[in-house]
């Protein structure tokens, strides 16, 4: 009867923000026994508008996310949002991507968000992805009548300003890295990764993975004890996005001429500075894809319960009797 939350003491020392993120009572944060109570007495936050059909299925509230996970999650939301928007501003200064050690105007990009003059001398946005050539006027290449890689509403600052984009990007990068280190170290120490995110042998069997894929496709979510643990697709998605975020920092540092003098091995690892810039962009796209799927899943699984659990730590599940 153990939830996802572990015995986190590192987080308690490091981050004393109990007002904003209350921990359940009782030191030193043991995973509390689940409180089984009828939904009518303590309704789950998203069950305030009660169903027309009675009886309401029995629910159980349990402690799912530790304080350190909740705080680092929301700091991450701010960091990744601003890093993405300022990153697209920086990208716009040279909206082309190359593979290898060098790459500039005279070399062949394999991705470009460019502009051409079409019939009647009208600007057209042309996005090239390898051999693929797409007309993307209004979105990529040309938007608002202007030649710019990404449109204004996707860049920080909105207007073309590489200097300020860089200042925001590197400021947020520091917060992101410190926040990420707090997350990685504390959850390695308290066993969260091993306990909750590492897939079990049984979960990794092809048949089990296939069943999870089918369940996901049918939007079928587990109830009862099974709902307290992450399924294998969730685990792989969360581990995958952690890897992507680590790759973002590594490829970002590979673009720094100063850091390259300290760690030239990164250039070897990623195949050169321009390859690192391209991988940085690919990982950013994959992170955006993760966030889209993640937010859609939150809505499907119950937006108040999910967001509430990332604020209070408490998550309500159906015990299964109602189905």
């Amino acid at each position, binding site marked *: 009867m153990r939830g996802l939350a572990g015995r986190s003491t590192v987080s308690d020392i490091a981050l004393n923000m109990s007002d904003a993120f209350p921990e359940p009572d009782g030191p030193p944060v043991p995973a509390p026994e689940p409180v089984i109570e009828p939904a009518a007495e303590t309704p789950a936050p*998203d*069950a*305030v*508008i*009660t*169903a*027309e059909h009675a009886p309401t299925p029995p629910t159980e509230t349990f402690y799912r996310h530790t304080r350190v996970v909740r705080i680092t999650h929301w700091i991450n939301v701010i960091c990744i949002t*601003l890093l993405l*928007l300022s990153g697209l501003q*920086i*990208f716009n*200064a*040279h909206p*082309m991507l*190359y593979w290898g*050690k*060098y*790459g*500039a*105007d*005279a*070399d062949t990009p394999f991705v470009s968000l460019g502009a051409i003059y079409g019939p009647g001398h009208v600007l057209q946005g042309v996005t090239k992805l390898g051999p693929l050539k797409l007309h993307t006027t209004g979105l990529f290449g040309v938007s608002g009548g202007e030649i710019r890689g990404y449109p204004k*509403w996707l860049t*920080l*600052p*909105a207007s073309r*300003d590489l*200097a*300020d984009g*860089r*200042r*925001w990007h*590197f*400021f947020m*990068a*520091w917060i992101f890295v410190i926040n990420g280190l707090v997350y990685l170290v504390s959850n390695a120490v308290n066993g969260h990764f091993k306990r909750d995110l590492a897939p079990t042998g049984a979960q990794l069997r092809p048949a089990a993975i296939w069943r999870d894929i089918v369940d996901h496709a049918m*939007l*079928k*979510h587990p*109830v009862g004890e099974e709902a307290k643990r992450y399924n294998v697709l969730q685990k792989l998605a969360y581990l995958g996005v952690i890897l992507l975020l680590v790759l973002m920092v590594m490829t970002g540092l590979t*673009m*720094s*001429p*100063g*850091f*390259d*003098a*300290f760690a*030239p091995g990164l*250039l070897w690892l990623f195949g050169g*500075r*321009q390859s690192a*810039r391209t991988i940085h962009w690919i990982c950013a796209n994959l992170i955006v894809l993760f966030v889209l799927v993640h937010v859609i899943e939150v*809505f499907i*699984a*119950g*937006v*108040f*319960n999910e967001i509430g659990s990332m604020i209070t730590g408490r998550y309500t599940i*159906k015990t299964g009797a109602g189905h």
Partner: protein
Amino acid sequence: MSNATHGPDLSRRGLILAGTALGGLLLSGCDRLSQAPQALKFIDHAEGLTRGAQRLILSGQPLAPEFKPSDISPTFKPNGSFHPTDPAYQALLDNGFADWRLAVTGLVNQPLSISLAQLKALPARTQITRHDCVEGWSAIAQWSGPQLGAILHAAGLQPHARYVVFHCADNLGGPGDGGKYYESIDLFDAFHPQTILAHTMNNQPLGVPHGAPIRLRVERQLGYKQAKYVMAIEVTDRLSGINGGHGGFWEDRGYEWYAGI
């Protein structure tokens, strides 16, 4: 399943609408905040943090990566000024820089005036390095020239010397002294073995688009630090009195002085 069957659809729709509105507000607010002077002043602390961190990991003065001749870019993109319009520069160029003199002044014991022939006679360092523009592109070339450290040693630095300022011939910012290109580095980078005054590029005399007769190579920083058309070197203890006061042409226009990232 759990929520799909009962009522919060309406409120969910409301939430999505509210979220979209809030997101829009946040984005426009974000943009205004992103250019507020107080906000920019605050986030500028990150530059000091980056400089401090890089100086710490580079304290052993490791070299920037050097490349093989086969790695050299077929075309090295010139950037900024391609041909200075200054009549004095044009006169020097017309005469093959025979009358060009590199002035070394400021907080030095012995001010110098070095001809191009003298500069070329000095022991040169040759390195194949990568040039990284702040915009994101890179080009690789081979550079040769004397180490800046040797020239500074010859001039002899006074005890309170902190920065080396490079005054250039090109008016990238338009006519007048305010538009003149200039750059600066501190002594940590000035005495790095790869910091050279390059007079030769890919075994050819440095061309006009690349900064003839000499350009600075300071290999652990971005392209805008690699001053072209260097006319004079000034050793100083502060940057505040020079041009816009931020230590460089692009620095006076909002870019970081420390360009190691």
